């Protein structure tokens, strides 16, 4: 069984990423259960996708302490969901903080650095990704999800290989975006 938790802020593209993981697992002949955040939270709130692949899975949501890998699109969201990580699990985190409007309004100093320091302290297998850099090189802010997925695949913890990810991209994303997304896979 492989358990993945994707977390971020509404609008960052977590849902598509979870669909690609699920697609690859289905292609391998595994059963899949997922759970998504759809609705009001998509408007800039915290979003979480649970993806579980394998046999004898009951709950579509991960039990706490069971994630093989957490793919966090934002540092604070990784920390918020860290209780889902199993002992020895991997965290892939995008280093750029998304500042909520409330932080700008109150003049809070949140910039993600404390969250990253916490992760470095507490997570053995941590991969920090400069998503902005990859997006800039690809020329689109929309490839963040693919870049993070690719990093997770390369870490070996995702239960999905880089080739499986490429296959999922080709089969599940419109053709005009293939080149862009495959480039993001290489750069991650």
């Amino acid at each position, binding site marked *: 069984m492989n358990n993945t938790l994707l977390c971020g802020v509404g609008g960052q593209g977590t849902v598509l990423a979870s669909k690609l993981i699920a697609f690859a697992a289905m292609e391998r002949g595994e059963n899949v*259960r997922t759970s998504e955040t759809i609705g009001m939270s998509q408007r800039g709130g915290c979003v979480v996708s649970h993806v579980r692949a394998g046999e004898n899975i009951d709950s579509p949501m991960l039990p706490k302490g069971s994630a093989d890998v957490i793919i966090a699109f934002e540092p604070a969201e990784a920390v918020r969901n860290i209780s889902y990580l199993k002992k020895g699990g991997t965290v892939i985190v995008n280093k750029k903080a998304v*500042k909520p409007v409330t932080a700008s309004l109150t003049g*809070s100093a949140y910039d993600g650095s404390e969250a990253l320091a916490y992760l470095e302290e507490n997570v053995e297998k941590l991969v920090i990704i400069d998503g902005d850099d990859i997006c800039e090189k690809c020329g689109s802010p929309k490839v963040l999800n693919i870049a993070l997925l690719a990093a997770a695949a390369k870490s070996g913890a995702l239960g999905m290989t880089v080739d499986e990810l490429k296959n999922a991209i080709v089969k599940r994303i419109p053709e005009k975006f293939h080149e862009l997304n495959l480039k993001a896979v290489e750069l991650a």
Partner: protein
Amino acid sequence: MSKRFLMGNEAIALGAIHAGVNVVSGYPGTPSTEILETVAKNNKDRNIYVEWSVNEKAALEVAAGAAYSGARALVTMKQVGLNVASDPLMSLAYVGVKGGMVVVSADDPGPISSQTEQDTRHFGQFAKLPVFDPSSPEEAYEMIQDAFEFSEKYGTPVLFRPTTRVDHGCASVEVRDSFEPNKPEGFVRDTKRWVIFPRASYLNHIKLEKRDPVLGDEFSSYRFNKLSGSGKIGIATHGISYAYTCEVLNGSGSEYKLLKISTPNPFPEKLALEFLDGLEEVVCIEELDPVIERALTYIIGKHHLNVTVHGKLDGAVQPAGENTVESVREVLSRFMDTKPCNAVSAQAPELPVRPPVLCAGCPHRASFYAVKQAAKGKKAVFAGDIGCYTLGNAMPLDMVDTCLCMGADVTIAQGIRRVDPDTVCFSFIGDSTFFASGMTGVVNAVYNQTDIILIVLDNSTTAMTGHQPHPGTGVTMMGDVCAKVSIPKILEAVGCTMVRTVDPLDLAAAEAAVSEAMEMKGVKAIIMKSPCIAVTKPAKLCSVDEKKCIGCKKCIRELGCPAIVLTDGRPAIEPSLCYGCGVCAQVCPVNAIGR
């Protein structure tokens, strides 16, 4: 059969298609929306009639008419939509149907995107309707087909009640490759059957009461009501809580009896008695209301059994909110061994809160701001409504004083005005909500001569639920182009003293229109017309000229746009979020923001 990866709502839709559904109607509402959308997507040959109705009451009546005519009909809505549809539904339970009719009412424990935590299972008891409660997408696919069969067999509409985690969970589902289409006979006149009268209702009431024990017995052997295990402790559960229960108990080594109730009404009493036999204690794991818990307590009393019941009523289970694997583990671990939780915990730093906000570039932000500026210094009340624009309540806009239910903004404002005659009463309503239940409220104000200012936030879509068309958009779910119903023409026709359409992104013009309305008598309507950013391309993006910016932060303090962030103490515009609405450029006192 073939295996497909489906969202619960997609599984429900495909199940209905494979049951030979002929007519599907509904009104959008999280978490139910994707059901009707999926039927429409899988309707290339146009064999099924699909519509977004103007509201849930209309949707239910369209489905009822189709079912009278022998069609298999599906109607979809969220739980609060069922309240709107309850007038026809209560009577329909007495009248009955010819073709199978399934009413999907999606409940939302938490609540995650709803006004209430109401439980549709109660509605089934109240309306005397059978209720189906699926626990997974796989089960939902099969169960909706069963629901059509039961509906036709007993000549009654049935309720189908998934919850958010079933609707929005995805799973590998075995689906049929072919199905038998249903050929409706057409409407056959029979006034004794289709015209509701007190005498007929009395007789039908007797029939319903006689039917329920028979149906309850049939449900006792229904394939998705499951009884397993042995021992002196029993667990009774349902829906997604069944999955959580299995998650914490499978492989735990504990001895227990497990009852899953998929048909809470009429309650399968025989099966429940079999479950209760030999038990000392029962733990009821439910979301929303203690429906199973009360039914078991009743059966235990009726049969003088010596079984103690735990659940929401004795405080063993939380009274409100969603269950989780962890909450179920916590409850059950007081009665038996559960699988351990392996979560690692370390003191985490303080994290930013992220309440949902209006998107960057959302025209509602401009509309609220324009009204706020025009009403500055005046005694005013801002009545809000259901939709993305409920988010206008957030700081710094703070422009929603009330929000109750669909359409209530218009009429709540009138009630406030009657008590506070020197207050300017604004009501804010979206375009889809206006058609759903706002129009009658406007007529009420005109007829009763109550001065209000109606602000129609017309973004040409039903945004919050994922951009469904409505009567003002000129397209239907069959893919046809149709005449657009004009909001300003309606408002003129009912007698509003002022009807003005403005672009809210032109702040000065919008503010001037509001100021003018405040000087007039009667029901004044301003249509703030600008499309939702999710259905339009961004304009040229805005940026802050660092040389001109004086760092006053007025743009941040007054607009609260998520694209404007504080970087090193200065406002900066995040290009990946900006839509180029240009409202911040109009607010900046020193013209430091431009495209």
